[in-house]
């Protein structure tokens, strides 16, 4: 069975190359499409895709709006996706994967934060920076899905935190897919650069409009320089018709600090690749994830911490609760390269199964090539603590309420890692509503 209409893709690709010819991105796309054609879509035989099947996603006929940069959505539709704290945020709107400056609001000054369409950055004064840093994630994620995103880089965004600037206004990226009439494939691409001694907070969220299916195939590449602080948050609460494969590739190119929190509450098939590449000595990274699943949701978190230089520290905590027929996957890889002596790397994954039809696959992987390191990993899969449940019920608290209290407590250690207060409260509220509701 033909999985995706290659002819249609090829046609769209050629169209795009004609619209945007003869520049840096034209070459990057060409290379991407070559790779896409060379690779096959991953199947369960591919170790990285053993527990997550994308074949159903590629059986649909998608509408590609790769050549349309005009906003396909209205300002009022943007209002529906806005996250709390937006009054104080730089709000970047992506319609069907394309950055739409007309719908976006930049609140930080240009001396602090530069936000440009990726084409403009690639053809202007940031050309060298784009050339140096765009596409680095392909060295780590080299499957056809990633290559497909690269094949259609157009309408992406370039975000640059200026040296020495603490950016007070977080950057919110709203991804809206309009699936009112067709299945839609959205392929946002972002390149982020946090210069020395800057601080930058990124927040991403997703929404599908309409009842057809959306598939967001996203790549975010971030380079963080010395003394900089990067916080990255991903909130996934789209409907069951919203699927997602996303790679967030963070390179710590100077001694710096990175902090990521990925919260998945709803959606169809979701795969999050979150990579931290420690290219400088003394890097520090904290990675958190919460997946609280219902219905038929499938959420796969693949994390990678690549220790390449000495004296790096990383701590990783992912927690999952699976209800109904949902499935969770956690795969955490830690590399410690020969030069990465004195590495401290920790990883924990805890899972609770609430239903007999829910399942989870968890796979920690350590590959250590240095001899003076401290690494640990641990994972648990279990049911809700029956003793604690009985204790609460024995005081007159209903079973449902007691269960919600325990799950909220379980999730809290992840949610409290969201350092943007209004966003943290929002996540707490979403979780409370979820725990009160019907999760079938």
């Amino acid at each position, binding site marked *: 069975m033909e999985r995706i209409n290659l002819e249609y893709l090829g046609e769209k690709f050629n169209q795009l190359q004609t619209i945007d010819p003869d520049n840096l991105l034209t070459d990057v796309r060409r290379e991407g499409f070559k790779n896409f054609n060379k690779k096959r879509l991953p199947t369960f035989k591919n170790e990285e895709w053993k527990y997550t099947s994308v074949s159903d996603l590629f059986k649909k006929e998608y509408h590609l709006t790769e050549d349309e940069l005009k906003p396909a959505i209205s300002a009022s539709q943007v209002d529906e996706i806005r996250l709390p704290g937006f009054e104080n945020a730089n709000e970047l709107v992506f319609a069907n994967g394309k950055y739409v400056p007309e719908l976006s609001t930049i609140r930080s000054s240009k001396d602090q934060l530069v936000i440009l369409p990726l084409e403009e950055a690639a053809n202007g004064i940031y050309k060298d920076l784009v050339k140096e840093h765009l596409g680095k994630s392909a060295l780590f994620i080299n499957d056809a899905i990633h290559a497909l995103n690269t094949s259609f880089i157009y309408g992406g965004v370039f975000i640059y935190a200026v040296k020495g600037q603490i950016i007070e206004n977080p950057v919110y990226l709203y991804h809206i897919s309009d699936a009112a009439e067709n299945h839609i494939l959205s392929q946002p691409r972002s390149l982020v650069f946090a210069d020395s001694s800057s601080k930058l907070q990124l927040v991403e969220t997703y929404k599908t409009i309409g009842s057809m299916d959306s598939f967001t195939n996203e790549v975010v590449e971030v380079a963080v320089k010395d003394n900089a602080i990067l916080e990255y948050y991903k909130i996934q609460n789209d409907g069951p018709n919203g699927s997602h494969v996303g790679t967030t590739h963070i390179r710590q190119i100077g001694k710096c600090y990175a902090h990521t929190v990925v919260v998945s509450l709803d959606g169809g098939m979701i795969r999050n690749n979150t990579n931290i590449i420690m290219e400088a000595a003394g890097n520090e990274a904290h990675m958190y994830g919460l997946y609280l699943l219902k219905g038929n949701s499938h959420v796969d978190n693949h994390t990678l911490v690549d220790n390449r230089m000495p004296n790096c520290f990383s701590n990783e905590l992912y927690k999952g609760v699976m209800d109904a027929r949902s499935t969770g996957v956690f795969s955490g890889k830690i590399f410690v390269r020969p030069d990465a002596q004195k590495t401290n790397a920790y990883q924990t994954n805890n899972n609770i199964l609430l239903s007999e039809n829910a399942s989870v696959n968890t796979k920690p992987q350590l590959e250590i090539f240095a001899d003076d390191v401290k690494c640990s990993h641990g994972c648990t899969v279990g049911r809700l603590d029956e*003793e604690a449940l009985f204790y609460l*019920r024995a005081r007159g608290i*209903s079973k449902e309420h007691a269960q919600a209290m325990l799950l909220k407590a379980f999730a809290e250690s992840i949610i409290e890692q969201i350092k943007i207060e209004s966003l943290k409260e929002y996540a707490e509220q979403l979780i409370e509503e979820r725990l009160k509701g019907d999760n079938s």
Partner: protein
Amino acid sequence: MDKEEIIFNIQVEGKKIIIKFYIRKKMLSIKDLRASVEGKEILKGINLDVNAGEVHAIMGPNGSGKSTLASVLAGREEYEVTGGSVDFLGKDILDLSPEDRAREGLFLAFQYPVEIPGVSTTNFIKTAVNEKRKYHGQPPLDAVSFMKLMKEKMNLVEIDKSLLTRSINEGFSGGEKKKNEIFQMAMLEPKLTILDETDSGLDIDALRIVANGVNKLRDENRAIIVITHYQRLLDYLQPDFVHVLLNGKIVKSGTKELALELEEKGYDFIKDEFLSEAV
């Protein structure tokens, strides 16, 4: 009024004599209660009546079924009730969920209170108090009234305020956990309290505080069942009745003097007595 009074006025040789009878209301009536866990019968026909205002002590060697009895009464699901009935204030509670038993006024002070990280003690108790109120058709307590009630009961059981802002029992010492149980009892004002080895692991000072807390909550409308191995808690609580549980049955009942006798002689003399009867 949980207590009824019957008054006789009689004249004997021209003198008026008033005789008052107090009839204590029956609170708990356990009849031929049998329960097993994983197919093994632990309770083999328990009979026990507890009236309002009374304190009953249940003693017995390890493995005799004391804690099982407490668990079955509170509704722990891993125990299967295979026979008998438990009437609590006119209702058969064996059909009720643990939460409904609690809302009806039954309280189990746990032998091993559970640590629950991430759930604040105050929030937990507030939820419990308000769910009970809702069950009885009362509106929830507002924040001010709740804090006032907390303060009053905190003084009563001498519990430190800082414990209540922490997660339930997390990192509490043994004494603090038991005090927290008595504090919850004070907040929920149960009709029947079961103290399951509340004295175990307590030093002398903590035991005194816990026992005083329980004593302050005693009145003629409430009853207490104390499960214990030791005389020292009974010294404080002064039970009306003492029962000896052996091999899943109550084999001997008496007054508080029975506890003293047990303290002195151990359980062997009862075992001998019981066995010779059985033969």
